């Protein structure tokens, strides 16, 4: 059933890396201890946050939903064990920013008591929509790290025919072994989840793609396939080459097809799903259990007992570290994810989230590689290894000079941040950092543009409103004047009198005249006049009287 790797295609570049996988493969998957408190971030996936369903003080049972997703691209979160909600507040979450986000904090009661679940005996009795709905309500997201809502991925749309579904068991990044262990120990669950996915996508062509450094996993899956007589699933063993597990790279290796630049795999009839996600689907459909735990690899040279632990979502990382014997003396960095694509955390007081596949404790030894950065010598090593066929040195040049148009012309957004280029760069340039910097800058510019478009619209709208109001005011004023005038005319016509305004003015004029006469027409500033002045006045008076007489 396992196909030979010589019929496979290859992708450009890639690196052979030291796996460092055995250290966490020595013991079977353990069970992480139920912590005193679980901290459940409301947002652990790509898409919108759901609406909160609970409040502080509520008692919750294991598996009880904490949020409700009303938008399409979203996933609810659930209580991972039973207990009391002590706080709903911002708490630090595992994110490169080190920022906080809203979390539900549950004080556990240790009973681990399940809420009511509704298992499905035969999923074939349900239609694809109903299955997707259940997967959606179970809060299942891609467990390979991207955390994209699985129900959305299982619904490519009516006019998108899917003919191949690839189940990603490559796990190509060093140190991480959670998928390997899952496939070894829970192959039946994985196959069962795959059957549900294939049924929901209405296709009969499932391929489990695994790197050939995992013979036990391949064996276990083949056995599970045989046991369940699954003729629609086959296992393909691929050469171990980082990053074979990248979606586009995997598709290239398995099918030889290229996903178009800005396109999705579904555009060429392919969907890629992580094997861990399949086990979660199995739990959700056959047992009605939502995604409340995941397998986390706790490993690295800086941890005493590296192993895989089935961990409740929301368990503080510090608890996991403690269960693995704690840090060694030379432990330096805690990384979430692998050494190539993960990011460094500044504290271990953070909850495990759905997308957390690995906690890597690095020692100073691993960090020593970071010698000072030198200028780029244009050796082209980065170009040789880039699995996305990009020109990393050009990207670096344009990203560092903040030329965000140019950096996009060089397909920045096709970069999968695999880190191959930075790994081989003889000048030790942290290339991926520059790409991450440029990506977030560009997103931010786009957000600002949208915001200013919105402000322009609001401003124009206000302007239009003000203009309209002014017009209306003027109109009202004009109407009122007209009405008054009309009324006056009518009144005048009725009483047969003259225009009262005119009369009033005349009356006023008359009053002024009377007053003047009363004063005897004597100007007030005629005391103390010189003889000359007096004469001038008399002459003027004479002229005036003369002209009056005339």
């Amino acid at each position: 059933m396992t196909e030979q790797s010589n019929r496979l295609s290859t992708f450009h570049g890639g690196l052979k890396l030291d796996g460092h996988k055995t250290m966490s493969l020595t013991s079977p998957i353990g069970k992480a201890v139920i912590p005193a408190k679980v901290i459940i971030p409301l947002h652990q996936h790509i898409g919108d946050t759901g609406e909160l369903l609970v409040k502080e003080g509520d008692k919750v049972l294991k598996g009880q939903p904490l949020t409700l997703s009303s938008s399409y691209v979203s996933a609810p979160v659930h209580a991972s064990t039973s207990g009391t909600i002590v706080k709903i507040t911002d708490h630090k979450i595992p994110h490169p920013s080190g920022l906080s986000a809203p979390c539900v904090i549950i004080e556990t009661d240790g009973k681990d008591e399940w809420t009511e679940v509704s298992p499905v005996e035969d999923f074939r009795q349900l239609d694809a929509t109903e299955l997707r709905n259940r997967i959606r309500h179970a809060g299942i997201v891609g467990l390979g790290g991207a955390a994209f809502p699985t129900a959305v991925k299982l619904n490519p749309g009516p006019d998108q025919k899917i003919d191949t579904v690839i189940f990603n068991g490559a796990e190509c990044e060093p140190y991480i072994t959670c998928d390997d262990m899952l496939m070894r120990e829970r192959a039946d669950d994985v196959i069962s989840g795959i059957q549900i996915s294939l049924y929901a996508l209405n296709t009969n062509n499932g391929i489990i793609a695994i790197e050939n450094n995992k013979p036990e996993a391949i064996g276990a899956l083949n056995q599970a396939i045989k046991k369940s007589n699954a003729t629609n699933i086959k296992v393909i063993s691929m050469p171990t080459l980082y990053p074979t597990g990248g979606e586009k790279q995997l598709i290239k290796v398995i099918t030889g097809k290229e996903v178009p630049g800005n396109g999705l795999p579904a555009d060429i009839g392919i969907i890629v799903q992580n094997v861990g996600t399949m086990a979660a689907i199995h739990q959700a459909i056959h047992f009605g259990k939502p995604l409340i735990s995941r397998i986390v690899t706790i490993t690295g040279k800086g941890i005493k007992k590296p192993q895989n632990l089935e961990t409740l979502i929301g368990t503080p990382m510090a608890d996991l570290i403690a269960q693995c014997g704690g840090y060694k003396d030379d432990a330096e960095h805690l990384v979430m994810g692998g050494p190539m694509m993960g990011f460094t955390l500044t504290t271990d007081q953070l909850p495990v989230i759905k997308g957390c596949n690995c906690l890597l404790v690095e020692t100073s030894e691993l960090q020593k590689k970071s010698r000072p950065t030198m200028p780029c010598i244009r050796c082209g090593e980065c170009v040789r290894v880039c699995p996305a066929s990009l020109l990393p040195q050009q990207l670096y040049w344009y990203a560092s000079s903040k030329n965000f148009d140019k950096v996009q012309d060089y397909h920045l957004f096709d970069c999968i941040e695999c880190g191959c280029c930075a790994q081989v760069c003889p000048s030790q340039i942290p290339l991926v950092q520059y790409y991450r910097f440029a990506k977030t800058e560009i997103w931010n510019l786009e957000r600002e543009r949208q915001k200013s478009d919105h402000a322009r619209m609001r401003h124009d709208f206000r302007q239009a409103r003000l203009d309209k109001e002014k017009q209306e005011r003027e109109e009202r004023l004009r109407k009122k004047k007209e009405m008054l005038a009309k009324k006056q005319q009518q009144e005048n016509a009725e009483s047969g009198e003259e225009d009262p305004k005119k009369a009033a003015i005349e009356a006023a004029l008359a009053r002024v005249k009377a007053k003047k006469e009363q004063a005897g027409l004597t100007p007030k500033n005629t005391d103390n006049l010189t003889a000359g002045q007096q004469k001038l006045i008399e002459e003027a008076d004479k002229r005036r009287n003369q002209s009056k007489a005339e």
Partner: protein
Amino acid sequence: MSILTAVITLGLIAGIFGLLLGYASIRFHVEGDPVVDKIDALLPQTQCGQCSFAGCRPYAEAIANGEAPINQCPPGGETTILALADLLGVEAIPLNAEHGEEKPVATVAIIDEQVCIGCTLCIQACPVDAILGAAKQMHTVIEDECTGCELCIPPCPVDCIEMIPLKETLETWKWPLPEHTHTAPKI
């Protein structure tokens, strides 16, 4: 039968409205000046008036008519100047400090709801209708709509409006530029 009547009636109504809308779009079409539009698209739309014009569009018109230089918009800062220089094919010049300085972080207005007397003066000043409230009622700023123009601050008789820096969220957080930047060689 009644369905048919309904369909026909609705169809007719739709048709009439279609014609009306079509007519309106021709009759009331406003000829926009494409250059002004392009300049306006690059301005931040804070509508603060710091450029000494009554908003972004008037400034855009002045630039288009060659009546104002491109360095008078503090909210846009260097980014806007560079974009304008690029669009108009002119040399980028530093921001004219007479018009103000570029704010290091974006801010939004917040009203101290205990102190607000509900005078509505800020509502009248806000260029984007971001303030909610009625006479003698407490007022509040819709954070998402506020452009941070600060125009509402001077009119407030009880000084209860303050500008606060916009909180960084997971969506707005940006990776920093790595520290050791060497100039890449010229190509």
